């Protein structure tokens, strides 16, 4: 069995606001295996960024962890002091943010920005740190790196800046890399380059990646496993094939159905909007937008039902007594593909 490098259990996070407590994370559990890429998918406000910020100890001041644990090397990250977190952040768990324009310091040479974590965390002396910075800058594909290491962020394009951000994140060879929408601000052709680069570097330095995105196309290309979040909860998780070819939760169906593929002729939008987490609904949070909702969905929250050893979904449709429903056309097509794939491998 794969080694678990990170284990999040029953995480609950509230945000205190003037209007009341926003229940942003409502009992989230997941784990990360060594060397894998776990994608967390969800709409804005589903809690995917808050989850990962809690891993880094970077929650906003009005946030309060009201329960759960985040186990990393047999220690609970949530119990660590700010000082202890500073030793983990950037060294063992590093993060790439969405916007490469704002995550670099405009007044610092990029060589300095890449060398800084080395000097701080690994006590490497300045000259050696710059030499290592140069190596990693070449590794992330900045051409003419010897010259450009002395340049400032504004002298680079968006794609190059994201490469520099990746270099900073990886320079200490972190065990876990959290990538929060790392390519959303980039053009498709540049996005493809950056994703390719991340895959190559992952193989080279054996880091585990948590990849946060709302783009299911990117997920399909990057992830080993996928967790789908909705309204502060994980509603389905499984391997990338299980989620894309054998999805069980109506929200996952809706997501796959509302994305155009290059061949699709019809888009089915998910009606309505996500619930207000100031006052989350009692039952299945997706019930109000779910055309397959049953009476029990508004009354009681569904537990996780096991689909396979690696695949779980929180929907009452998987209950043995639930009526059989026919998913949308596109999902039926995917289920058929899955049947064919599993049949071949048996």
């Amino acid at each position, binding site marked *: 069995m794969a080694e678990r490098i990170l284990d999040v259990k029953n995480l609950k996070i509230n945000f205190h606001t003037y209007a009341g407590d926003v229940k942003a994370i409502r009992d989230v559990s997941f784990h990360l295996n060594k060397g894998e890429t776990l994608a967390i998918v969800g709409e804005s406000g589903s809690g995917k960024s808050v989850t990962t910020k809690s891993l880094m100890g970077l929650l906003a001041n009005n946030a309060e962890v009201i329960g759960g644990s985040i186990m990393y090397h047999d220690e609970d990250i949530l119990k660590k002091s700010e000082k202890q977190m500073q030793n983990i952040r950037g060294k063992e768990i590093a993060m790439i943010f969405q916007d490469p324009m704002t995550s670099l310091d405009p007044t610092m040479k990029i060589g300095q920005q890449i060398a800084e974590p080395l000097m701080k965390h690994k006590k490497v002396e300045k000259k050696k740190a710059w030499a290592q910075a140069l190596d990693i800058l070449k590794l992330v594909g900045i051409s003419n790196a010897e010259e450009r290491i002395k340049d400032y962020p504004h002298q680079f394009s968006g794609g190059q800046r994201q490469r520099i951000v990746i270099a900073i994140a990886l320079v200490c060879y972190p065990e876990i890399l959290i990538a929060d929408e790392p390519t959303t601000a980039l053009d498709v052709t540049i996005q493809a380059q950056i994703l390719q680069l991340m895959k190559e570097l992952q193989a080279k330095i054996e880091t585990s990646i948590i990849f946060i995105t709302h783009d299911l196309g990117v997920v399909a290309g990057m992830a080993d496993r996928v967790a789908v979040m909705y309204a502060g909860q994980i509603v389905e998780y499984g391997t990338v094939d299980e989620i894309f070819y054998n999805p069980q939760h109506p929200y996952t169906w809706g997501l796959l159905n*509302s994305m155009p593929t290059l061949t699709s002729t019809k888009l089915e939008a998910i009606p309505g909007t996500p619930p207000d987490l100031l006052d989350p609904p009692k039952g299945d949070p997706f019930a109000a937008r779910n055309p397959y909702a049953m009476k029990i969905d508004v009354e009681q929250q569904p537990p996780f039902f096991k689909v396979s050893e690696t695949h779980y979904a929180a929907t009452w449709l998987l209950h043995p007594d639930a009526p059989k429903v026919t998913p949308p056309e596109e999902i039926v097509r995917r289920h058929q593909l899955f049947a064919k794939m599993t049949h071949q491998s048996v």
Partner: protein
Amino acid sequence: MAEKQKKLLEVKHLKQYFNVGKSDEVKAVDDVSCDIYEGETFGLVGESGSGKTTTGRSIIHLYKPTAGQIIFDGQDVNQFKNKAEILAFRREMQMIFQDPYASLNPRMKIKDIVAEGIDIHHLAKDSAQRNKMVEDLLELVGLNRDHSSRYPHEFSGGQRQRIGIARALAVQPKFIIADEPISALDVSIQAQVVNLLKDLQRDQGLTYLFIAHDLSMVKYISDRIGVMHYGKLLEVGPSDEIYAHPLHDYTASLISAVPVPDPEYERNRKQIAYDSSVEVDHPENPRKLHEVVPGRFVRCTDEELPMYQERAAKFTK
């Protein structure tokens, strides 16, 4: 079929340069020509900096073009003689913007935002009629009639984009330029807005210029597509054909980079590299849009044309 349709908009050799004559002159749009037919959706795709937004803004006359003509409904947009003609033009052509947070004035009520066009063009006799028009519009775009006295901050991104659409529709335009109208929205909301735009087109006979970088969404909504790169229009054609069989290498490279929500496809993805240096024009042998096969245009020289014709012939077999 396209030939029989009426041309609603003709763009002829549009050039939009910035900082003309200075060392940092930018040829944002460089000799772009295209026609948009009544009732169709023309998708304009390209990377950031390709000039697609500038093209849209030049068409709606937010810039004065450096050269070239924009003929809307038989009239040259740059030859308006007086304010009345400009006003009349503005009624016919409206725009929906990318950022639903920045494009609505936070201090104005929804009814005043939506009714701005109605007021300017004096379309309402009295305030009762004005209110009724606004409420009808809100209902049309899928919002609640009672929302008209609220402020923008009370709405989500998708709802704000619906307000932007209602504002554009208020003056009953023929032609709408939608500049990345869904880029700022969540996946599940994107489909809602796109479907709304499609329904409105069907019911009101609207013509769209749909500008976006998300190729799969553009393909879904557009009848025809134009591909822009470095200010030049490289390829024009029916969206299905362009996606299935791109003629220009840049188009092929762009399509090969689109992530598809299908792990099997992604595992076998072959990204096509593109060398943009081949695009450099020689003054003695300029490239222009050639019709390779009926309805499909590629920007090339006279010498390159047979190569593209050969490519196109392969696909039609």
